């Protein structure tokens, strides 16, 4: 989820929290401790990296960005979830989702 939040542009701590909340329809409210724990692990795996630092209103912000490897992992994960959703639809006998050709 954090990877997905970082996909469009580099973000700083609270930016990630807000993006994740928006992405999950307000369901995932990331805490600060959880966020930095996850960021540390992702950085250790080489999936995210430090982009730049800046000070806004006296508050220090570090921006993180997705690495190439991070993007690959994100793509693979998205594919996997799409597969899973498709399989679930078949099992439930639901119609295939309308594919938006424009998108």
């Amino acid at each position, binding site marked *: 989820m954090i990877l997905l939040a970082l996909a469009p542009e580099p973000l*700083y*701590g*609270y930016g990630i*929290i807000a993006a994740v909340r928006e992405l999950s329809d307000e369901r995932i409210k990331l*805490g*600060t*401790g*959880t*966020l*930095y*724990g996850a960021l*540390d692990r992702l*950085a*250790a795996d*080489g999936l*995210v*990296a*430090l982009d730049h630092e800046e000070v806004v209103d*006296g*508050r*220090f*912000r*570090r921006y993180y960005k997705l*690495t190439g490897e991070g993007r690959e992992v994100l793509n693979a994960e998205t594919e996997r979830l799409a597969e899973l959703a498709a399989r679930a639809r078949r099992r439930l006998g639901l119609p295939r989702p309308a594919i938006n050709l424009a998108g």
Partner: protein
Amino acid sequence: MMNTPFEQRCDLLLRSYPPRYRQIRRDEILGTLLDAAEPHATAPSVRECWDVIRGGIATRLRERPPFHRWLAYRLMDIPVPYRYRMWVRDDALGRFHILRSNLGHLVFMYLVMLATWAWMAFTSGDAALPAMSPTAWTILAVGAVITVVNPLFHQAFRRRILLKHDFDEDGRALGFEQAQPEPPYESGPADRLPHERSDRPE
């Protein structure tokens, strides 16, 4: 901006993180906590507090050497694997290091003594362990060593243990130009100094 009640609360919360981590990440995490809080709040929300404390404890646990390595380090001063050297830095520079290290060494000496007795008992076939009844003089002598002699050598001991993990006596990393402790949790600085990680085997 410095030391508002909110910041004091945050600093208290951040004590759950290891000192080296706090040194590098304090301002950043503080900024995020400020952003996440309601305007004019005097403290982060209860939920946020718990989350930070949990994160701090998880970080401490993650960066601790494994138990057998910790035991070897504490009892016999055997260096821990290189990736845990920042933990050693905090340990050696932290408060009460003299107590921690002395206790470890005492336990080690006691174990050696026990092993010697056991071996003697095994080879001679006598009673398992000699009865121990320390006299007042023995207690005084041991006490004097712990309280007077050991502190005299503690600085040298601390310097040696730091040197074993490639730090100078103030905890600055040796072996490369960058004097600041390198955060192992970010790929940022490692990107800038790619030689650092590869030049040392674990």
